[in-house]
């Protein structure tokens, strides 16, 4: 079981967006793709998810249950939160009572209330919608979770709460994660491996391992590592930061 992206190139019309991408995600591994806006991160994730077919190269995904959390919550506006969370389970043919029970249990763990479950997404706050979207992705018990800047619009309190939930989920079921973010701190907090992308056309320019176990990555450790990380020359070029004196 793994996700293999081999020598992939992609273009929209005549514009080349990705070139020569090699990427592997092993079971249980968390890989973060960081890079400036518009460098093709989302395209790469869509390729990994099978939502796009690559122009060149091949994408092989042998994970059985991939799930994705999109940049926006993307809940179905005409379904109550309960049914939104249970969407993947309904698709898998689970009976109504069982999938509703699973959805409710997950939602409660995410800090949603019984009341929220009966609401339509438009009646939920942005943070609640994000929780519901994460619950929807986790409900199918994914072995690969794709995250597309899923936490970028949230406040720091909610972020750290969802990070904790995600870490719990990975501990419990060893699900692999491929996340894209432009938040270096997020990458350092969550990932085992950080791939740095640079733009036009997008390619992977550097790779860094983070070997500290998740449990030992506290606030101050994350701050220190991020400060170190941001001084690396390849990061500075990728994000077009001015050179250090």
């Amino acid at each position, binding site marked *: 079981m793994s996700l293999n992206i081999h020598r992939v190139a992609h273009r929209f019309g005549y514009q080349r967006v990705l070139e020569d991408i090699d990427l592997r995600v092993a079971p249980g591994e968390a890989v973060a793709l960081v890079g400036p806006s518009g460098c093709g991160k989302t395209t790469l994730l869509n390729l990994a*998810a099978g939502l796009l077919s690559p122009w060149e190269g091949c994408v092989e995904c042998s994970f059985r249950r991939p799930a994705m959390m999109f940049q926006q919550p*993307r809940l179905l506006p*005409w379904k109550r939160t309960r049914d939104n969370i249970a*969407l*993947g389970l*309904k*698709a898998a043919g689970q009976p109504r009572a069982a999938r509703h029970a699973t959805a409710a249990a997950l939602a409660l763990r995410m800090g949603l209330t019984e009341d929220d479950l009966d609401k*339509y997404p*438009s009646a939920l706050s942005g943070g609640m919608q994000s929780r519901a979207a994460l619950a929807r992705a986790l409900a199918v018990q994914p072995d690969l979770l794709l995250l597309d800047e899923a936490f970028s619009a949230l406040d720091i309190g909610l972020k750290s709460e969802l990070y904790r939930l995600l870490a719990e989920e990975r501990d419990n079921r060893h699900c692999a994660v491929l996340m894209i973010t432009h938040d270096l701190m997020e990458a350092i907090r969550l990932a085992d491996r950080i791939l740095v992308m640079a733009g036009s056309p997008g390619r992977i320019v550097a790779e860094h391992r983070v070997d500290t176990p998740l449990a030992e990555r506290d606030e101050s450790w994350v701050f220190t590592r991020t400060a170190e990380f941001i001084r690396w020359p390849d990061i500075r070029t990728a994000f077009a930061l001015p050179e250090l004196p």
Partner: protein
Amino acid sequence: MSRARLTLARRLVDGLAATGHYLWGGWGSLASLCLFFALWEFTAQRLGSLILPTPGEAFATLTGLFASGEAWPEIAVTARRALLGYVLALSLGSLLGLLAGLSVTASVMARPIVTLLVGTPPIAWLILALLWFGAGDGTPVFTVFIACFPIIFVGAMQGTRTLDGQLQAVAQMFGLPGWMKLTDVYLPHVVSYLFPGWITALGTAWKVVVMAELLATSDGVGAALAVTRSHLDTAASMAWIVALVGSLLAIEYLLLEPIKRKVESWRNFA
């Protein structure tokens, strides 16, 4: 079990509250209707009953028409024609519109034709229909159909054209089977475009059928109107008009609007 019952109870209470809210909202409409009748009464008193009968006279005549059993058969005939043309337009227009929306080429090609159909006045279609179908059911049914079709077609086409690509990606990602994509993703969206079209078309059907009957048939409300006109019987004319408008309002507010509220309840919580 008890939790399920609780949820059910809450749904019920929510539903009742929504109905109450809807009916309470009717007070405003009722007030404006009263104002309208007052204005009518005032004008009628000024002009005299030959030119404009008072609401009282019109309603008395209408009651008389119902009491003598004269009204029902005519209304039934008219309703049959209007509904037949409407149902034809509804099924064909929805189906073709949805299909046209699926393809960019088809919708680009359909647009000028639709503009042409919408732009042609129903009276022109009526003349053609008279030539093709003569005096009988065919003429009003066809005129209703051709007047309603483009309205419904455009609504359906917009519905599929505006399907949200983001939600389609969600559907694909979570492996929704085909039927579920249809019932959970496509239809709820499309219906919100179809419904306004259906309602507008129903109003059009009701108006056009009377016009067609006035010129083409010897029975139905339109024909009855033609007779009252030739007898200079303004009170009866008004009575028929009240019957027409009243039935249209009844269908729209007692049938279609509640259905729409039910189907689109998710919008009201915004």
